[in-house]
């Protein structure tokens, strides 16, 4: 074959290989089509079907951004490298505190990789928390917080199946605006921010209420998609929205709004907390719980234990007596010594003795013989399960301080509580205006009203959060009396609160 001919056939072979490869690529990458009245839609090639199955198609994830798609195409498959270079640049700009170029670069990254959630989260956090803190002026700080929130909202458009971003918006709006040192100013600016709120009525522009809406959106998305929130316990995730309502009610009173408005907010908070308590929460123990059901399970467990013990009355006492007999003399002596007087060795012995005296339901059931044994074992198992369920709920309740908030939301609706808070607020106002006599008067009346509340709801005194708040109030009262050269009363009306929480404060 002549060289010319050989070259010709070589080219033909190349073309054939290219055609085959292109055909294969086209078959694999065929896009899906939607059906019409006349034509049936096609599920597309293997890649399109896989994308659909794994929910990775762009339309499935969120909006398609023409600018982003253009850039993606323009990088000719080097998107990853381009994003990497931009990320490097963004970090450099952040290091040099060049916020203009930082924002511009972040914008470019999100256009290249709009479904990379970490970029949205990391950079929104960067803007709202790190960059904003670099400024002295609170207005400037607020503006960067809003920039961070807007950035997240931009991410939501392209990632409509991502509850984390919705939750983040809720967190930024509620916590960053409502918990900063500048919260008073931030909340005021937030209420006045027409550009952010659009046509939302002013009364609903509270950051806690708006934050709550976003938390609720995140919950709705999780429920509708049937997915879990990655990296976050459902217990905490579902508590955020109702806690926002609590914080809203609290913030109203801090801002000086009392009466029916505050009561309404607390009623709403109590309702939402109850709803939270009745929602199913998966646990790491492998069972689903409802926070409101602790008392129900305790009751069930108690009834079952009573039934179990009724099968052979006096058995528990007998077992206890036997176990006591098995204790060593040293253990018995250690147990007899009051807790506070025990030495280290005695503590150890007493703990061993207590352990040895434990009587489980199973132990009782196993000691029952005869025809009742089967029923006893069944009752013991059920009772133990109910006890465990109640224990898990109790542990989970402690994480979110469930009982405290549940009680608080109810107590705060009471006339006396509202009146007590208002009087203390008025006292603080008078103190700020240096009207000490009026301040003392308001405080005296306020503290007396608190006494009435605590007499009705003694559970409050036990709570550390309430206790530390109250100690602060008492501290201010002390300050007023000092300035008036009046002694602090010996029989102080809230002495029990001081006794309980004063040392910690």
């Amino acid at each position: 074959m002549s060289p010319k001919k050989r070259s010709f056939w070589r080219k033909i072979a190349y073309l054939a290989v290219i055609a085959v490869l292109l055909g294969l690529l086209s078959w694999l990458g065929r896009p899906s089509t939607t059906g019409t009245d006349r034509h049936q839609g096609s599920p597309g090639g293997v890649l399109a079907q896989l994308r659909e199955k794994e929910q990775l198609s762009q339309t499935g994830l969120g909006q398609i951004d023409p600018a982003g798609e253009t850039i993606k195409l323009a990088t000719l498959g080097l998107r990853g490298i381009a994003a990497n270079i931009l990320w490097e640049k963004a970090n450099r700009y952040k290091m040099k505190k060049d916020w203009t170029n930082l924002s511009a670069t972040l914008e470019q990254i999100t256009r290249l990789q709009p479904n990379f959630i970490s970029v949205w989260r990391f950079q929104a956090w960067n803007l709202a928390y790190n960059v904003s803190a670099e400024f002295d002026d609170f207005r400037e700080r607020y503006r960067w917080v809003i920039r961070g929130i807007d950035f997240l909202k931009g991410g939501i458009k392209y990632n409509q199946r991502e509850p984390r971003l919705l939750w983040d918006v809720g967190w930024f709006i509620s916590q960053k605006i409502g918990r900063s040192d500048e919260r008073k100013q931030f909340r005021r600016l937030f209420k006045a921010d027409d550009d952010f709120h659009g046509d939302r009525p002013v009364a609903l522009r509270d950051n806690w209420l708006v934050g709550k809406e976003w938390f609720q959106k995140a919950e709705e998305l999780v429920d509708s998609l049937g997915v879990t929130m990655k990296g976050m316990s459902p217990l905490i995730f579902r508590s955020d929205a109702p806690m926002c309502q609590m914080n809203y009610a609290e913030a109203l009173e801090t801002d000086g709004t009392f009466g029916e408005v505050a009561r309404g907010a607390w009623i709403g908070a109590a309702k939402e907390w109850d709803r939270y308590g009745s929602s199913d929460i998966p646990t790491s123990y492998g069972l689903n719980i409802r926070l409101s059901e602790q008392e129900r399970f305790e009751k069930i467990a108690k009834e079952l234990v009573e039934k179990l013990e009724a099968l052979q009355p006096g058995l528990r006492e007998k077992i206890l007596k036997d176990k006591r007999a098995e204790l060593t003399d040293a253990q018995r002596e250690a147990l007899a010594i009051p807790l506070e007087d025990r030495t280290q060795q005695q503590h150890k012995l007493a703990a061993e003795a207590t352990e040895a005296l434990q009587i489980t339901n199973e132990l009782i059931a196993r000691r029952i013989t005869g025809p009742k044994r089967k029923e006893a074992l069944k009752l013991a198992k059920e009772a133990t399960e109910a006890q465990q369920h109640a224990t898990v709920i109790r542990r989970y309740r402690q994480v979110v301080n469930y009982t405290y908030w549940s009680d608080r939301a109810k107590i705060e609706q009471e006339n006396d509580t509202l009146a007590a808070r208002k009087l203390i607020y008025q006292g603080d106002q008078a103190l700020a205006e240096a009207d000490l006599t009026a301040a003392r008067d308001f405080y005296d009346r306020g503290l007396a009203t608190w006494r009435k509340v605590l007499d009705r709801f003694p559970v409050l005194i036990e709570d550390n959060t309430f206790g530390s708040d109250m100690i602060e109030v008492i501290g201010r009262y002390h300050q007023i009396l000092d300035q008036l050269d009046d002694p602090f009363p010996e029989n102080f009306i809230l002495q029990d609160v001081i006794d309980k929480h004063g040392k910690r404060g």
Partner: protein
Amino acid sequence: MVLEHAETLPLEVWFPLALLKWLLVLGGVAIAGLMVGWLSVAMRRGPVAGIRIVGRLLAATVGDILHISPRRVWALSWLAVRESIRRRVVVVFAVFIVILLFAGWFLDPGSTHPARLYLSFVLTATSYLVLLLALFLSSVSLPADIKSKTLHTVVTKPVRPSEIVLGRICGFTAIGTLLLVTMAAISYVFVVRGLSHTHELTDDDLHAVQHHAQGQPAVREGLTSRVHRHRHLATIEPSGRGRIAMEQNHWHDLEIEKSDGKTTYKLSRPRGMLVARVPVYGTLRFKDRDGKDSKKGVNVGDEWTYRSYIEGGTLATAVWTFDGITKKRFPESLFPKGLPVEMTIEVFRTYKGDTDDPENIPGIPGSLSVRNPATGEMVEAVIFTAREFTTDVVYIPRRLQTPDGNVLDLFDDLVSDGKMEIWLRCVQPAQYFGAAQADVYLRARDASFTLNFIKGYFGIWLQMVLIIGIGVLFSTFLSGPVAIIATSGALVGGVFSGFMMRLARGEVIGGGPVEAFIRILLQQNLVSDMEPGMRTTVAQMLDVVLGYGLYVAASILPAFGEFSFADHVAYGFDISGAVILKNTCRAAAYLVPLFVAAYLFLKTREVAK
């Protein structure tokens, strides 16, 4: 944000040093080249013949260069221009227009410094496109002519190889210049139109904020309409005068008209956005907390070590020494308030301030004192509150009062031979001020922004000419695609020459090229030590060898970044004549040897004989 590398070496000092360095390097390269040439001839024809042939070539080179005919160069340049047009250079122009059309998708007019963004964008886009065009045009032209034998027709005419090389360089430069001028004009319109906006303000937007007395008119404030994602705070004084607050690095003039009992407010186009400040930079030194001279200030642990910090409430000081401060330069008619000092001071706080009242955080106070370096006389001139991330302006009064009541004249008593010192101190204990040399300067005047914009494009032009020179050089002895790769390599290497130098010196975290490659393959992080062993030892040895190559390459290649004035234009600083002149000299210093080398390569090729 600031320009990090303020040019401070005066031209008259720089030029002789640079010229000497250039002559030494050039001499070294020329001698090395002659030695190589002589060796290659000597090996074939013997040492004496080698000297004779090399001498003849040298004489012919000098003759060829001296007898260049402008007419023939013109004809060859015109040929290059026509060839470029045939190669559809206009496509680049079309791409540029398309980029501008879609730029609105990516440029955020709501940015804190929109002008910076727009200017950086147009200058970067233009330079990428023009440099790529220059690269392709210059690299493929000669090889294509040689391949198509067009050059054979040319060399049959009485032209010298030097004229062919020069004709190419001039022709491509001409076409590139034409394109660049058009792009600059369009970019200018794009930036000015893109940033231009105004806001609306009505009586309904304004509300009273401060009552003077019962029945007296009050100061009124309000926000303008939202345009380009921002609003301005408008303040109307009882006298009827109004002002618009600075926002996104600009403000608007406010014109208030009253007719038929109705007040209308007219806001001008943005002001202060497109500027070209002419700075007078000083040299910076530090004093430590006890007032003793120190090389640097305190390191507060900032990752970016550009700025050095001085401790508040101590004798720690940042001292700038300025030269050329005269009454003539700062006449009272133009500077009635005094000497304008612009500062970009960074604050490092060890505590946040009074968080109980964030509304009135007082900021961190600082002081500026003026000192006569000759007499040592010093007066505190200004007490200010540091504002971060903005360029703050304070004025040093022309007449200053000392604590004992004496009045000193700024120019007569505190300036000696045009020299003056400005001492910066942080007043508040336990807080720190951070500063670098370019952070404090005197704003001598404002130059024309349009002219500065043109100067910015001149920087791109210089880069383009350099690329053309390199491209033509490679095209004289390499085939088209290889010449493109070689020129691209020179361009990329030039852009990253600073990084290459750091890599060669072993200053880059993660090791040299081989070590970095191994880390990528093994997905190792940059900071942890490599596992000791044979592999690591070999890799590090190879890196040392490669380091030498990188060092030579980084030293020879033109640092393209230094020819770019984009930052000056974007950050609103005038590009001084000295900077322009220095960079023109630098470019010429590259172009001369490039031209001679290109000539020699072409001359020694068969086709040109």
